[in-house]
């Protein structure tokens, strides 16, 4: 992903998080906590995009671990 795009996205998510924290009176504290946690996860994710070799998604490891066995099992005659 383009570095400028990434920076814009991070700024956008931070602005939305701050906006949310300003108007949060209609929610319970647990709901607020979940929303803030999700925003922080999104920001961390965008930061992680600066490191293209970093594999964070579980799907990558599942693919690496499981698919060779299933492939071998499927193609062995």
């Amino acid at each position, binding site marked *: *992903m*383009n570095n400028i*795009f990434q920076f814009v*996205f991070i700024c956008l*998510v931070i602005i*939305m998080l701050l906006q*949310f924290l300003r108007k949060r009176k209609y*929610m*319970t504290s*647990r*709901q607020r906590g*979940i*929303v803030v946690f*999700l*925003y922080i*996860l*999104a920001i961390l*994710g*965008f930061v*992680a*995009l600066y490191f293209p070799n970093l594999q*964070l*998604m*579980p*799907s*990558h490891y*599942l*693919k690496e*671990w*499981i*698919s060779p066995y*299933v*492939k071998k*099992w*499927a*193609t062995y*005659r």
Partner: protein
Amino acid sequence: MLQKQVVSHRQVAWLVGSVLLTGSMITFYQSLVQVAKMDAWFSQLLPMIYAIFICYVLMELVHIYPGKNIFEIMFLICGKWFGGFINLILVLYILTILTVDVKGLSFFIQASLLPQTPLEIILLVFVLLLMSYRTLEVAARVNEIYFPTHIIVNFLLFLFLANEFSPERFEPMLSSGVKQILISNYMSMGVYGDIILFGAFLPVFIQPQLFFAAFKHGVIIVGFMSSLILLVLLGVMGYTIASRLNYPVLSLVQQIHVTDFLDRVEIFMLSLWFPAFTIKVIIAYLALLTGIGTFGGERQHKPYNPPVGFLLVVTSLLSFQHVEEMEVFVGYAYSTMVLIIQVPLLLFLFFRSRIQGSKRAHEKTGIPPDNRYSRFYRAMSWTSNLSIVGCLIAVSIGKWFFEMDKSVGQIVVIVIICLLFIAMVASYCQMQVVNHYLHRTRTTIASTGNKH
């Protein structure tokens, strides 16, 4: 919020069709053909049975825990911590489904329509589209327009590709090993397991018997259509080409050369497939919001929409750098992941609902036994079930005899298509008879109430 939604049985059947059929059409068939070669089209039989089992468990839950979704049920049964842990796994599973679909669609759109547009922009626009849908009801109504059109267009594939179709391309049928056929069935189970997404909308399904029949009908439509698409794919391209293409269905549609003026039919087909696929992703997105909302203790999921949208964008960007990675994951790892999560959960919920169900047997809703509706319902239920089992028996017998006579394969093809069609019609009748009974009962109660 969810109880106020009204979704009819037909809409549910078509939603099931959209969820299960459209997702696998991007790249999944390639892996199936790689493994089972010309017998890949037998790969939908066991997954259909598995999906019907999931529907049965979901509808038992509707009966035992009316008005609760699967996340709330897990909290109720397993408590705050263990239930929360299981729900977290379910939420991550749904996020994986979404990531695969959103990234897969972005790759597909970039390869087929918008080669110059950055992947991030396609992905972002698609996620914004998902965020605009708030309820299942709206998605169900939109799906009522696109799903039947998509099915009709799939049937038209036969007509348009009749000049390219050659039965010799999938000969000798049934020559793959039993193991390869079983593994192709195993690989399809992951895609059919996506039906568990409807667990997030259980409060909408107020009549368990009617909605079980609707789910079953949807699953059988998908089994029938997927088998036919695979049959056409193999008949037009043969397994060697089909197993090497990244987007086999797109390439199949590109083979349409009916006349000189009917050019680029795939653009028209894509414009019908895309909304049907979007509905599938919307269902998964709403299920994810519902799951996250349950952790907050309320069904109101509006506040989670912006952060979850951003999270979906970033997880899609972080996962699968190339389309081949996604193909390997969906083809060879996804089913294992799905079965590891779903099978223990479903067995646990099944036995739990059986135990609870025996205590609440007197509260059973639906058609009472020993009336003409009930007899017809049972007859249709048996017909559809036996038709699916008949398909399995036909494949087994065909496999047994194919070395004696090579024409057995062609007979098996005809038998299976007929049996799947019978199953589809019988499941439709099964759904309609419950609907007629409930409609009649409601009318009778209303007229009695007016007299009093």
